[in-house]
C-alpha cells in the first residue's frame, strides 16, 4: 500500500528507480511464467544445448590426444571421438533451433497478450485521454515499444542464461583440463572487465549523445523543410542553409566522436581473445613441453596434453565471448525496461468509471433534455462553462452559436457524457444522466460530427456501423436519404467499395454524406449535429444541407449551427460567449432584445 503512494510521487534518487525496475522485471516475468509450459522447456533446452556445445571441445581434445599420441595415431579413438563430436554438434544445433522456435512462440504469445491488453484498455479509457494524448505516442507504444520488449524477451533472457552457463561451464572444463593454466585469465579477465567498464562509462554516453544530436538535426531539418515555401518566399535559403550546416557539422562531430571512441570496440575484443591465445600458448606450451618430456608426470597437477591445449584454446574463446557481450545485453535490458514502463502506463491507465450499480437503461426515449446550472472545466483551474441552463422539449431544435473556443463543443461532450459535469445536472426524460447506463444514453443520440470519421472497410460496413443488422435495402435507403446513393452507384464496386487512404478518391463532402447516411440508420429520438463550415463546393454543400434537414425531422436536435437558415428555423438559439449563455430565444426574440445577436446580425446582413 505504501509502495503505491511512493510510486506516484516522482523522485530523483536512484533507489526507488531500482525498485521500480525490479517491479517491472517481476511483472514481465509474470507474463512469461503465465506460459510456464513453454518457459520451462525453454530453460531446459537452453541448458541442454549449451551443455552439448560445451562437450564438443572435450571430444576434440581426446581426438587430438589420439592424433598426437607418441606411439602413432590411434585412429579408432579419433573416429570414436569425431563421431561423438558430430553427435554433440548436430544435437546442439537441433536443440538451439528448437529453443529458438519455442522462444519465438513464447514471445509472440506475450506480445499478443500485451498488445491486446493495451488496446482493450485503450477502448475503455475516457475521452479525456484521447483529447490529451497524441495518437502518434499511443501508436509508438503499441508497435515500437512492444517490439523492443519482445526482442528483449525472446533473445536477451536466453542470452543471459547462455552466457552464464557458458562462462561457468567453460571455466569448469578448463579447470578440469589444467588448473595452473586458468591463471592466464587472472591477466585477461581484468583487462576485459576494465574494457567493459570503459565501454559503459565512456563510449555508451558518446553514442547516446550521437543519437541525441542526430535527433536534433533531424528535428531541425523537418522543421525547416516544413517552412520551405516561406523560406523561398523571402529568398532566405542561404541563411537557413548556413544554420543547417552549422548544426549538421555539430551532429557529425558527435557522430564522429562516438565512432572514434567506438573504433576501439571490435579490435579490443579481438585483442583480448588473441592475448588469451598467446598467453595460453606460452604457459600451455611450457607445460606441454615438460609433460611431453616426462618431467611432469601424467598424474600431476601441471600435466597437459596436446588435446588439452587444443581444448583450452577453444574454451578460452567461449569464455571470453559472453564477458564482452554483457555490457550490450545490459543496455538492451535498460531500453526494454523503459519501453515496458511506457506500455504498462497505458495498460494501468484508469478506465472510464463503471456505470452506477443501479443505473437504469434508457428505453423509449421521448427526448426531453434539461441542463440545470451546469458548470464544467477540462482542468480544475480553467472553467469552460458557467451555469448553463436549458430546457429542450421533445422534438425541438436547439441551435448553439458562438465564436470558436466559446464552449459549444463542450456542451456536446457533456450531453453525450464523454465528460462528467463538475456541478449541476443534465437529465433526459427527467432522469439524471449519471443514473442511466452510458450505452443506453449514448445510444439514444445520433451524432454527426464535423470531422468525418470513416474507417478502412467497405462503404456498406461504414454505413451499417451504427446498426450491424441493417439489410442492404436499409443501407440503400439511408444512402438515398443522405443524397450519396448516386455517387456510390457510380463506383465500380458500389457499396462494397473499400474506403482506404490510397484507394478511390472520396472528397471531403462525400465523406460527410457517408457519415450522414450512417446516422440515418439508428432510429433515435435525439440528434447532435455539428454543422460543417463551408469546406466543400456549393453543390455538395447544398446536398449536405438537404440531407441534414431530413436527419433532424422528428428529433430533439442540438446543432452547433453556422448557417443563417438553420439558426433562423431553430426553436431555441443559444448564444454562447466565453462559457456563459449570453442570450437565449428564437431569432425574432433575439432581434427584438437588441443584444449582441441583433447587433451582429444587423452589421453583417442589413443590406443597406
Amino acid at each position: 500500500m505504501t509502495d503505491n503512494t511512493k510510486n506516484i510521487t516522482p523522485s530523483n534518487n536512484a533507489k526507488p528507480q531500482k525498485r521500480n525496475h525490479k517491479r517491472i522485471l517481476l511483472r514481465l516475468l509474470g507474463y512469461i511464467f503465465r506460459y510456464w509450459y513453454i518457459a520451462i522447456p525453454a530453460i531446459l533446452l537452453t541448458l541442454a544445448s549449451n551443455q552439448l556445445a560445451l562437450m564438443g571441445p572435450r571430444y576434440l581434445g581426446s581426438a587430438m590426444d589420439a592424433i598426437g599420441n607418441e606411439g602413432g595415431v590411434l585412429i579408432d579413438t579419433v573416429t570414436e571421438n569425431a563421431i561423438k563430436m558430430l553427435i554433440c554438434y548436430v544435437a546442439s544445433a537441433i536443440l538451439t533451433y528448437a529453443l529458438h522456435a519455442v522462444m519465438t512462440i513464447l514471445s509472440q504469445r506475450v506480445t499478443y497478450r500485451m498488445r491486446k491488453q493495451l488496446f482493450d484498455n485503450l477502448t475503455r479509457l475516457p475521452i479525456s485521454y484521447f483529447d490529451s494524448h497524441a495518437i502518434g505516442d499511443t501508436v509508438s507504444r503499441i508497435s515500437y515499444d512492444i517490439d523492443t520488449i519482445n526482442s528483449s524477451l525472446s533473445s536477451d533472457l536466453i542470452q543471459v542464461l547462455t552466457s552464464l552457463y557458458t562462462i561457468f561451464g567453460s571455466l569448469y572444463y578448463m579447470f578440469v583440463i589444467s588448473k595452473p593454466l586458468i591463471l592466464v585469465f587472472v591477466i585477461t579477465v581484468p583487462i576485459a572487465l576494465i574494457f567493459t567498464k570503459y565501454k559503459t562509462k565512456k563510449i555508451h554516453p558518446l553514442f547516446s549523445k550521437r543519437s541525441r544530436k542526430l535527433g536534433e538535426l533531424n528535428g531541425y531539418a523537418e522543421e525547416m523543410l516544413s517552412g520551405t515555401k516561406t523560406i523561398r518566399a523571402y529568398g532566405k535559403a542561404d541563411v537557413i542553409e548556413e544554420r543547417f550546416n552549422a548544426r549538421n557539422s555539430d551532429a557529425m562531430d558527435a557522430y564522429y566522436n562516438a565512432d572514434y571512441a567506438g573504433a576501439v570496440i571490435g579490435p579490443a575484443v579481438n585483442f583480448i581473445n588473441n592475448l588469451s591465445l598467446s598467453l595460453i600458448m606460452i604457459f600451455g606450451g611450457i607445460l606441454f613441453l615438460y609433460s611431453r618430456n616426462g618431467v611432469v608426470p601424467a598424474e600431476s597437477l601441471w600435466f597437459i596434453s596436446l588435446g588439452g591445449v587444443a581444448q583450452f584454446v577453444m574454451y578460452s574463446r567461449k569464455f571470453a565471448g559472453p564477458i564482452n557481450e554483457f555490457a550490450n545485453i545490459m543496455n538492451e535490458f535498460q531500453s526494454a525496461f523503459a519501453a515496458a514502463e511506457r506500455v504498462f502506463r497505458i495498460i494501468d491507465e484508469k478506465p472510464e468509471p463503471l456505470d452506477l450499480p443501479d443505473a437504469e437503461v434508457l428505453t423509449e426515449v421521448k427526448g426531453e433534455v434539461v441542463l440545470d446550472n451546469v458548470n464544467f472545466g477540462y482542468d480544475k483551474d480553467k472553467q469552460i462553462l458557467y451555469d448553463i441552463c436549458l430546457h429542450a422539449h421533445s422534438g425541438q431544435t436547439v441551435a448553439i452559436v458562438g465564436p470558436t473556443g466559446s464552449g459549444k463543443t463542450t456542451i456536446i461532450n457533456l450531453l453525450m457524457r464523454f465528460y462528467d459535469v463538475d456541478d449541476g445536472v443534465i437529465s433526459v426524460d427527467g432522469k439524471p444522466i449519471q443514473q442511466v447506463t452510458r450505452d443506453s444514453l449514448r445510444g439514444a443520440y445520433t451524432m454527426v460530427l464535423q470531422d468525418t470519421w470513416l474507417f478502412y472497410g467497405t462503404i456498406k460496413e461504414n454505413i451499417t456501423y451504427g446498426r450491424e443488422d441493417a439489410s442492404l435495402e436499409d443501407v440503400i435507403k439511408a444512402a438515398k436519404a443522405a443524397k450519396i446513393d448516386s455517387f456510390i452507384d457510380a463506383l465500380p464496386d458500389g457499396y462494397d467499395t473499400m474506403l482506404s487512404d490510397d484507394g478511390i478518391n472520396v472528397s471531403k463532402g462525400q465523406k460527410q454524406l457517408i457519415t450522414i447516411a450512417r446516422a440515418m440508420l439508428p432510429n433515435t429520438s435525439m440528434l447532435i449535429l455539428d454543422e460543417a463550415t463551408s469546406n466543400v463546393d456549393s453543390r455538395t454543400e447544398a446536398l449536405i444541407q438537404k440531407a441534414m434537414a431530413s436527419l433532424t425531422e422528428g428529433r430533439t436536435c442540438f446543432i452547433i449551427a453556422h448557417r443563417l437558415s438553420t439558426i433562423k428555423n431553430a426553436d431555441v438559439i443559444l448564444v454562447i460567449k466565453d462559457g456563459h449563455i449570453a442570450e437565449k430565444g428564437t431569432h425574432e426574440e433575439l432581434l427584438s432584445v437588441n443584444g449582441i445577436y441583433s447587433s451582429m446580425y444587423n452589421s453583417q446582413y442589413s443590406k443597406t
Partner: protein
Amino acid sequence: MSVKFIFRYLKPYKTRMVVGFLIKAVGTFIELALPFILSYILDTVIPENGKIINIVLWGIAMIICALIALICNVIANRMAAYTARMSAERIRCELFERIMNLSGRQTDRFTLPSLESRITTDTYNVHNFTGMMQRLGVRAPLLLLGGIAVSLILDPFLALVMLGLMPVVFVVIYLVSHKGIPLYSKVQSSVDGMIRVVREDSAGIRVIKALSKTDYERRRYDKVNKKLVKNETKAGLTMGIVNPALNLLMNLGVVFVVLIGAYRVMGLKTEPGKIIAFTQYFTMISMALISITRIFIMYTKSSASAKRIAEVIDSPADLTVKDENEFPFVKEDGYIVFDDVTFSYNGKTDNISHMSFSLPKGGSLGIIGHTGSGKTTILNLLMRFYDVDSGAVRIAGKDVRTYADDDLRKLFGVAMQNDFLYADTIEENIKFGRDLTREQVERAAKIAQAHDFISALPDGYEQSLSQKGVNVSGGQKQRLLIARAVAKDPDILILDDSSSALDFKTDLMLRKALKENMTSSTQIIVAQRVSSVQSCDLIIVLEDGKITGMGKHEELLFSCPAYSEIAESQMGGAFLD
C-alpha cells in the same frame, strides 16, 4: 549508379582512404599470423629443441602481433570514421541546399515527407554504410581470402575440406534470406494494418463510444493482432535457422578436419598443431562470412538510399530566369496583372483557368472562396513558386518569369496559412535572417498587434519559441507571422488566411493599423471569412479555379450568389468573433 554517387563524395579523401585500407590490411594479415605461430610452436618449437625461451619468444611474438593488429585496426577504423563523417556531412549539406532550391512542382513530386526521410534516414544509411564499408569491407574479404591462403599453405588438403563447406554456407544464407525477406515485408504490412486500427480508433473514439462499438473494435483489432502474430512467428521461425545452421556447418568443418587430419598425421602428411590452427582459422573465416552477409544486406539498403538522395541532388534546375525577349514588357495601368492565366498542378485538371484581373499600385485585393477553389494557387503563381501553363503574371508590367530571383523575392512580405515559426527567439523569427534593426522589429510587431503580448512575456523579444512555434497560441502565431511580413515594408504584402484565429477586435485593429502604416504596399488578403476581406478595394470570389464574382463587398452581397452564400454560412460562428 548509386555506388558512383557515393564515390563522388569519397573522392576528396582518396589518399586517406587508401592509407587506411593499407593499415587495415596490415592489421588483418598480422592477425592471420597468430594461429600460424600457434601451430609452429606446437609442431616445431616444442618437439624439436624444447627450450622454454623459444616458446616464450614465440609467445611474445604472438602478443606483439596481437598488439600491432589492435593498433592498426583502431587507427584504420578511426580514419574510416573521419572519411565517413566528412563525406556524409557534404552529402547532407548539398542535399539540404538542393531541397531549399527545388521548385514548387519538384517539391510536390518528391513530397515533403519523402524529402524529410531522404535528409534523415537515407543520409544516415549512407553514412553508416561508408563507415562500415571501410571498417569491414576490407577486413572481411581479407580475413576470408587470407584465411584460405594461409590454410592452403599450412595444409592444402585440409584447406580444401574447409573450402568444400563454403558453398553450403552460401546456399543456406541465400535460401533463408530468399524465403525470409518476403516474410518480413508481410510482417511489415500486418504491422501497418494493426497501426491503422489503433490510429483510426483513436481518431474516431467519439463515434465508437457514441455507438457503443468498443467490443466490435476489440474484435476488429484482435483479428489484425492475430494476423500479425502469425506472420511474425513465421518470419521468426524461418530466419532463426541461420545461426544454428551456420554454427553447425562451422563445427562440422572442425569434425571433418580432425577426422581427415588424423589420417594425414598417420601418413605423416601433416602435424597435430596444424589441426588446432585450423580450428582457429575456421572461426575467423566464418566470422568473415557473417560480416560479408551483413555488408551485403547493408549495401542493398544504402544503395536504395543513395539513389534516393542522388535523385534530389541531381534533379535539374527548374524555374530559370527567362529572357525579356521571350516575355516582353507590357505598359499597363495595373501593378499586379493576371492575364488569361491557366494552371494545373498535375497537368490534368486545371486548378486555375483563364483568369484575368488587374490591381493598381497601393490597392488592396481580397480573395475569398472555399478550400480547393484556387486561392493559394494565385499566390503561388504570383510569387513564382510555379510557372503558369498559359497566359502571364506581371508585376509592374514585367513578367514574373523575367525577374531575377532575388529581385522578385525582395518585393514580397508574406504571411501564409499554417506558416512556419521555428525554434529561435521571437526577434529572430520576425527578422527571419534579414538585416533589420530592433526598432523595425518592434514597429512591425506593433502594426501586427503583437507588441503587447510579446512585451508581456518573461523574456520579451528574446523569448524562445519551441519547435514549429507550438508554445504560442494560434492567434499569437498569426500575429508574429504578420509582423514578419510587414517588417521590411514590402511592395506587396500578402496575407494568406493569416488572421483567422484572431478575435474580432484584434482583427479590426490589425486592419486599421495596416491601412495606416502600410500605405506604400499593395495588399493581397486571402480569407475564408467575409469579415476579413469586406473592406478591400477589390474582392474576387473564386469557385473551382474560376472567378465567379468581382467587386466591392456591398456590390457582391447583391450581385454574387456564391458570395452571399458564403456570408450566410458563416453566420453562426463568425459573426460573434
